[in-house]
């Protein structure tokens, strides 16, 4: 086991994928010479040259559409969109083109592209630079959606995403980039669509992804001190998500809490809840509680943002609530 930063793990995945497969290219705004706004693509230009590490103009709609066309013509583009908020400008390429091509062309037209983008708050970056919009993409048949929680799965999932024959939206958390975490000595690929059970428990299941996983783990630790055994599941892939693992855990615990940073209403947690309120109904011993952002744009002021984002306390409260221990 070594320690690696989340950002470095992503860089490593890009480097390894590019070294292995000459059809992998990276493109985006200021990703070449400048190494990316968060430094993730630093060094790639020197290693792979300007043909494969492409600095683009500020033309999100075009570069997303170009990734689709390039993917149809034999490349594997990895596109960086600087902040997830800017995916608003790429929706047509992703949703109407990339997502539908394989199906709509009758199985021709695989579109092996990855759109990498950071979501989330914590930087006082305000309402247009902090959003978590993954639920949009998870609703679109044809797109895969991935969101790693730490360096090891950031590496492993990105490798899978790049190798995948279909379009993948790969969501990073800007607050995690500088965080270190343990990784295996030999970095390994992690298949898409599989959740990881990070902590075993038998009283309550907490499902999470991305940066919120740390909150779930901390809350589980705190509950353990109170004698409540909490199982923590990291979804890793949001679409398709690992229903089997979540259902099996719920069958054991009977209680479910879902935690994410995105707005709670109509968010990813709603789908997990809804599936479990259907196929897992017989196992439910208490209400399913979601912990997410309130129905409000992400505020700028640091104190406001801190209250806005989910916290360990709110996860603990949710766990107590589903157990009827309020």
């Amino acid at each position, binding site marked *: 086991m070594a320690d690696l930063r989340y950002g470095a793990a992503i860089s490593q995945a890009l480097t390894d994928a590019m070294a292995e497969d000459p059809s992998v*290219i990276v493109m985006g705004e200021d990703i070449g010479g400048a190494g990316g706004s968060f430094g993730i693509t630093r060094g790639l230009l020197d290693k792979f040259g300007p*043909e*494969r590490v*492409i600095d*683009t*103009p500020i*033309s999100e*709609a*075009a*570069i*997303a*559409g*170009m*990734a*689709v*066309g*390039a*993917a*149809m*013509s*034999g*490349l594997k*583009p990895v596109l960086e969109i600087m902040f997830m908020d800017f995916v608003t400008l790429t929706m*047509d*390429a992703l949703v*109407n*083109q990339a997502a539908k*091509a*394989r*199906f*709509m*062309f*009758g*199985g*021709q*037209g*695989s579109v092996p592209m990855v759109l990498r983008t950071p979501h989330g708050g914590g930087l006082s970056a305000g309402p247009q630079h902090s959003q978590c919009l993954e639920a949009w993409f998870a609703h679109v*048949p*044809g*797109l*895969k959606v991935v969101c790693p929680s730490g360096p090891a799965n950031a590496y492993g999932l990105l490798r*899978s995403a790049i*190798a*995948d*024959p*279909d379009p993948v939206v790969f969501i990073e958390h800007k607050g995690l980039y500088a965080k270190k975490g343990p990784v295996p000595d030999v970095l390994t*690929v*992690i*298949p*898409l*669509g599989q959740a990881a059970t990070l902590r075993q428990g038998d009283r309550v299941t907490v499902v999470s992804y991305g940066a919120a996983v740390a909150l779930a783990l901390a809350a589980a630790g705190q509950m353990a001190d109170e004698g409540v055994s909490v199982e923590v599941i990291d979804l890793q892939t949001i679409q*398709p998500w690992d229903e089997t693992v979540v259902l099996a855990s719920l069958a054991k615990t009977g209680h479910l809490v879902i935690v994410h940073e995105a707005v709670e209403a109509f968010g990813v947690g709603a789908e997990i809840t809804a599936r479990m309120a259907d196929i897992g109904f017989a196992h439910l011993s208490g209400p399913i509680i979601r912990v997410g952002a309130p129905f409000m744009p992400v505020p700028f002021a640091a104190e406001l943002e801190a209250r806005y984002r989910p916290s360990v306390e709110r996860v603990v409260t949710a766990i107590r609530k589903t157990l009827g221990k309020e």
Partner: protein
Amino acid sequence: MPRQGANAGDQLAQLLRHYEQLLTVRRCEERLQRLFAEGEVPGFIHLSIGQEAISVGVMSALSDSDTIASTHRGHGHALAKGMPLEGFFAELLARDSGVCRGRGGSMHVADMSVGMLGANGIVGAGLSIATGSALAHKLKRSGNIAVSFFGDGALAEGLLHECGNVAALMKLPILLVCEANGWSEFSPADRQIAFNLADWSKAYGIEYRKADGNDVLAVAEAAEVLIHAVRDGEGPALLECTTSRWRGHFEGDAQKYRPQDEVQGRDPLEVAAAYLAREGVGEQHLSQISARIDAEVEAAIAAARAAPPANYESGFADVYTLSAG
């Protein structure tokens, strides 16, 4: 306007190929018109009758491994690029043997095997797909180019600007082909577009030509000159082809908005026939061609009709792949 550098026999053979392609597209769409009216073809269909010379002319300068991105009005592009008639009709008739297995229909006919990256229901979207395809061609040093077809209404979309700029900056091997039929759905295109493409292209440093889009040789010649430069790495070029949309925006469009006295362009078939006449190809030869094409079209329709209908379950496997990572 016979091309230079080809000998007389080549020229004639080429002209005959053009004529056959023009007629194939025309006949296919005329049949679709009837099939639609009779309720056999569902959905929205946009016919390119009257505009066939653009597809045929441009495609004559392309190879199978060059790529094109098309529009909602994409039948001509698809057929001229080499999509088989049977797969084409089977698609529009919603059969499992359709090029898209009956899942896409008219607005999404595609055939990757001949570099036809799809008709498109989103106006302007093909611009960025073709630009990306051109990027792939360039990086792979394949010598191929990409072509984006779009209408004069599509000129209002931001992607024209974004892709024009990126293609010019990166000197991508792409030809932009504007099919200027004067209409943007139910509105005259000139009421929606404040600029002309000659000036626009100049501003971006994009090589520009204008051609009579009803004259297949004029289109072919202009396309060839531009494509030669594009293939040579000189960056993007734009070909504007003036033409007319003979039918409604889509089949079933009552066209109340359309002036009775609108001047239609010349018939691309007649223009081509006149060239052939000059080369001594007479009516009789043309009727033979026509009879053969009719037979091919009918055979394709019959085969499509006989094919099994589109299959629901198979679709799930093509939403995305569930790989082992």
